[in-house]
């Protein structure tokens, strides 16, 4: 039988294991580990509302970004345009299923599941009622978080733009702006989300 001993006023630093005590009140600003400087706690005002709004915006942008081509190329009589999914499809066609799957995961499935998952978790919390299975979903989100690489993909678009711009006529498609905006919105959402707060609200032991 596991027993809970400490309130969240004491945290073990994840980088050096030192026990740090957090002030019981007034947690504004960023608190760092006394020994190694790792960030222990960041103040995130109005986290629930802001996260929810930003994630919803991100999801909408994500759908737009994937529905339309982000780049098209024209050279003489030939023209071609591509979305993320057609790129994946092309790799699959070229007998590179592993690579296709990796890109599908990191740029589509994982970001999508994270956004949908967070909406699933955070929306019921607005009504102070944890969603069923929310703990598992949130753990999944935290574990897969380094594998969502949309902003890296965005950089890839920019590099491809430069590389091909010299060879042929490249026209950025409607999705480019959606992708660009998406990056900022996702960054803002990550910044607004307060995981310790979410865990406190999901705590069923109260």
């Amino acid at each position, binding site marked *: 039988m*596991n*027993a*809970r*001993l*400490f309130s*969240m006023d*004491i*945290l*073990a630093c*994840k*980088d*050096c*294991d*030192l*026990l740090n005590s957090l002030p019981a009140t007034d947690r504004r600003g960023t608190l760092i580990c006394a*020994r*190694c*400087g*790792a960030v222990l706690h960041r103040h995130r005002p109005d986290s629930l509302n802001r996260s929810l709004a930003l994630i919803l915006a991100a999801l909408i942008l994500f759908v737009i970004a994937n529905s339309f081509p982000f*780049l098209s*190329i024209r*050279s*003489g009589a*030939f023209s*071609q345009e*591509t979305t993320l999914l057609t*790129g994946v*499809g*092309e*790799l699959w066609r*070229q007998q*590179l299923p*592993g*690579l296709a799957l*990796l*890109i599908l995961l*990191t740029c589509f499935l994982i970001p999508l599941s994270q956004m949908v998952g967070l909406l699933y978790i955070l929306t019921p919390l607005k009504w102070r009622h944890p969603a069923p299975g929310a*703990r598992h979903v949130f*753990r999944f989100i*935290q*574990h897969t978080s*380094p594998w969502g*690489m949309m902003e*890296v*993909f965005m*950089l*890839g*678009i920019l*590099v*491809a733009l*430069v*590389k*091909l711009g*010299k*060879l*042929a006529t490249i026209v950025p498609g409607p999705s480019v702006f959606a992708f660009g905006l998406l990056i900022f919105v996702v960054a803002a959402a990550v910044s607004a989300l307060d995981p*310790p707060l979410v*865990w406190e609200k*999901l705590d069923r*032991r109260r």
Partner: protein
Amino acid sequence: MNHKALTARKLGLFSCEDCQLLSRTDRDNNRPCCPRCGAPLHLRKPQSIARTLALITAAALLYIPANVLPITVTATLGDQQNDTILSGVIYFIGDGSWGVALVIFVASIIIPLAKLLILGYLLATVKFRSAWRPRDRTALYRLTEAVGRWSMVDIYVVTILVALVKLGAVATIEAGPAAGYFAAVVVITMFAARNFDPRLIWDVLEEER
């Protein structure tokens, strides 16, 4: 270093990797789980040194074909050109696109190499119980973990090129064998960084006394 520093492990406390809750468990419980979020609890990342070492070794071996083999094969009007990561960078420089050349050079050549060297170095310092600047070494680890995923950029560039440049006989690009090897290097080094437990750096300092 202050050997009186109070750590969770000294008190027999588990710090949950997912929800940061501190908890204690019965001694005869082989698989303790976090009472709040259900995550498996470990005092330290399991077999951190062994796993990290195995992973960086694998990545180091795969780094060779990733750079030696071509990453793209471009066919233009009957002519075929194989490009490795490095030859792509050189091409950008020759073309005057210094910014892009720098991005690809850093992301695809410097970062993976640096990750392998840094993780190898950190493993060595833990193995040989070094007391050299633990705070800086921890910062080095944080940097390594944060920056690794950006190496994937070249894979995405190849994906886009391959999807776009399908212009019949005028030009077609296909992904070369290096693409798979390079993707493997990035993925494996990401796992390697995740498996390394920076707390080990500080553990050896305490055992010093």
